[in-house]
């Protein structure tokens, strides 16, 4: 039980500061509310949200399986056929999903180690950019900012990383690092702009990041049609192939796509964790995120901290796109970012904004993606089911009261009410 708060009209209050400081959000803003909620969700709810999503996914798999539909036609004659078909379709889809994400058991039995570990290699390869992009959303999240702009930051960073990657000739290793640095700087600039606009004018980051996404994506499209960026002799938007010296080496080779980029991903998780928990920068970011008014009263420069958080975010987004530019693709195309910048929001929410949470969430979503392809190939279950799972997970995490209700967990029942809090309270 919790005490219902009496709403107040704010008529009697004298505080007018929300309007007096540009760039200050009222403490009960929607992003603030979202941030508070996500950070307060416990691990159990996260896991149960995953279980619940799998259960609903199972219903959808069964409902769309041809064998189930066929057996329903004579359900009253032989009902057990239908149950068997349901079980088989769900079991084969999910086992294909998990085998496609982790380990190909059949190949292992046949002794082809490389092929057996192909799923795991794919999972890591797909996860590497997701983890980094997840950090790009999670860091600002801790500062109270909702960065929808990883997509745009990655697109802009691809221009910088690509230019250095195919445009310069440098020794191997140095060239790769230079290309990564360029991508990180480009990403940081694009994201820093969001922080700057917020700090100086109070422009809401959700609006500016969405708009900057469009600008960056079309900018990338335009750049890809310029002489200095487009591959010679091609009319389609594609860059030259990156110099060998600027690409991530494969770790195992032999058909496994996993490259050294994944180590950069994991390294970035550790660096961000250290930054957030051990440094004054991290302390300030968390203070601003938890209570910007108290941060300002304690003399912190809230605007500067927003900018710093966005610079970190942009750098992570830049490194994220480098996983594709310097790793799997080795060229820059209009589709280089894919949908990673938006999947990153899922990863950050699922990871509850913590670096290691993001690592786990990135591997999970990466695994679902890799496994989804295998599932589609072997059972014909559409890969869209993976997107549905992903969406359901986010939905359940956004509505923890729902998960608690389904699993009869004890928790704050007022959770569902607080979002409707009145103005001035």
């Amino acid at each position, binding site marked *: 039980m919790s*005490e219902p708060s009496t709403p107040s009209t704010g008529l009697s209050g004298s505080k007018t*500061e929300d309007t007096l400081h540009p760039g200050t959000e009222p403490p009960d803003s929607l992003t603030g509310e979202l941030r508070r909620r996500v950070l307060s969700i416990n691990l159990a709810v996260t896991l149960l949200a995953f279980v619940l999503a799998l259960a609903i996914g199972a219903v959808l798999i069964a409902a769309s399986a041809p064998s189930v539909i066929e057996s329903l036609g004579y359900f009253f004659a032989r009902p057990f056929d239908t149950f068997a078909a349901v079980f088989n379709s769900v079991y084969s889809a999910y086992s294909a999903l998990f085998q496609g994400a982790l380990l190909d058991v059949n190949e292992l039995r046949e002794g082809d180690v490389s092929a057996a570990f192909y799923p795991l290699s794919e999972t890591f390869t797909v996860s590497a950019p997701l983890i980094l992009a997840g950090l790009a959303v999670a860091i600002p999240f801790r500062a109270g900012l909702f960065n929808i702009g990883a997509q745009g930051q990655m697109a802009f960073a691809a221009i910088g990383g690509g230019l250095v990657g195919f445009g310069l000739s440098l020794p191997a290793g140095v060239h790769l690092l230079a290309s990564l640095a360029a991508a990180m700087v480009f990403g940081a600039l694009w994201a820093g702009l969001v922080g700057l606009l917020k700090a100086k004018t109070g422009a809401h980051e959700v609006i500016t990041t969405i708009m900057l996404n469009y600008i960056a994506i079309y900018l990338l499209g335009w750049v890809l049609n310029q002489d200095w960026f487009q591959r010679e002799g091609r009319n389609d938007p594609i860059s030259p192939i990156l110099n060998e010296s600027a690409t991530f080496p494969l770790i195992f080779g032999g058909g496994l796509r996993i490259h050294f980029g994944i180590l950069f991903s994991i390294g970035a998780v550790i660096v961000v964790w250290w930054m957030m928990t051990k440094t004054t920068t991290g302390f300030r970011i968390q*203070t601003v995120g938890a*209570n910007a008014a108290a941060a300002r009263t304690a003399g*912190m420069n809230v605007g500067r901290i927003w900018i710093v958080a966005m610079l970190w975010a942009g750098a992570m987004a830049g490194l994220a796109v480098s996983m594709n530019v310097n790793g799997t693709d080795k060229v820059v195309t209009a589709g280089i970012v894919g949908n990673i910048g938006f999947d990153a929001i899922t990863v950050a929410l699922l990871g509850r904004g913590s670096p290691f949470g993001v690592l786990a969430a990135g591997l999970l979503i990466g695994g679902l993606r890799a496994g989804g392809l295998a599932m589609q190939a072997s059972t014909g279950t559409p890969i869209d089911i993976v997107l549905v799972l992903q969406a359901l997970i986010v939905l359940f995490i956004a509505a923890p009261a729902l998960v608690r209700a389904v699993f009869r967990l004890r928790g704050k029942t007022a959770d569902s009410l607080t979002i409707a809090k009145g103005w001035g309270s």
Partner: protein
Amino acid sequence: MQLQLRGITKRFGDLVANDDISVTFEPGQIHALLGENGAGKSTLMNVLYGLLQPDAGQIVVDGEPLVFHSPAGAIAAGIGMVHQHFMLVPVFTVAENVELGAESVGPFGFLKTADAARAVERVSAEYRLAVDPNAVVEDLPVGIQQRVEIVKALTREAQCVILDEPTAVLTPQETDELLSIVRGLRDAGKTIVLITHKLREVREAADVITVIRRGRVVAESVSPQTSEVELASLMVGREVSLVVDKPSLEVGEPVLRVNQLSVYDTLDRAIVDDVSFDVRAGEVLCIAGVQGNGQSELVEALVGLHDRSEGRIDLGEKRIDGLSTKGILDLGVGYVPEDREHDGLVGSFSLAHNMVLDTIGESPWSRRGVINYGLINENGQNLIEQYDVRATNAQVAASTLSGGNKQKVVLAREMSRSLRLLIASQPTRGLDVGSIEFVHRQIIQARQSGVGVIVVSTELDEVYALADRILVMYAGRIAGVVTPDVGRDDLGLLMAGATTS
């Protein structure tokens, strides 16, 4: 109407907010419910008003037990409530606010606002409330807005009116007017319940007093003739001294000089209007005034938290207007913000972290940007012992503390630096008597060590207890600077806008 509470018990988890409370409110009586913040008064009234369901006990109206599932039930039974925070829509007229929630509609769903206006006029004439039904609420002074709430209750045929901390936002004069209105209602036979923690008002207005402490009735049918010290002891449960022991004044040079300071809101209206004053080392300057007369903005401007201000501010030899908050704090300014939950603390952080919120970038807490958490935790533990913060250790989240202990954390942080000027805005608002004593002692201790102190307060008792000089603000200007030997009436007049001759 006779209203009886029989054995009301209400628990929130392990906390027993109301423990077997029985009170009878008689018609034609002003019954004061006295208790500290957190004693359970508001919970009890929320139970009575149908906002909360009791775990045990009964509400009996004129001998008949009733159960209220919502305020609608309580209203139907003739109970009206005037909340501490008014439940009015600012842009609506008085009549519209009064009909809100009980709108009567004519054909095609048109509102019969004229009926409501007539009801307002009738009630307002009957009890001499002087409320204009067509005035827009946001244009009205706070005292009149409160009357609108009373009118609202009366138009719904309330036989019992509950007033929850009604004087918190009023000037002394407005308070007097309110009390005379309440007496009028009593004489008309209404049952009046006055919830408050202000001893003076209770003694002045109540016919009978019930004292609540920690959810229990500790004294019933107390006579209003009981002395203030005695009432305070009942509230707190031990002997309290209402006087702060204040050694004689040894003032030094001015530490803060404020010259022609103005602060503007976003519409360029002057919230603080051309204010000049100084604060000397070793004195307490109280800024008195009714809430919302520019005190908060003045203080924000002093510590660089307001970016729309002009004028000159000097701290010692250094000009500080235009400096960042960090720059001003670093020059030896301690700041206890008015809203400690919102501006003073990060609720989700540990006490130890809250203690270094403003010095985290400095040695020894961090070197080259890397934090030494060992030292910070040690410091937190030392400070909570030194400032008597009641918490199991320095690792608990600040949000778990009571108001008094939160304020001690803020004070500990601000006073553990070396200070020249301490600015405390509403330092004891909402605190229990014990914590108030502690905070007052700390403020006087700062004064004794030669720090210049500014205390912003709306409580006259506090102003008289602490001040060496009193600066009264009204409508953004200085209405007068007086010494604490001035009478309450004169101070009240200044707070209401009269100027000193």
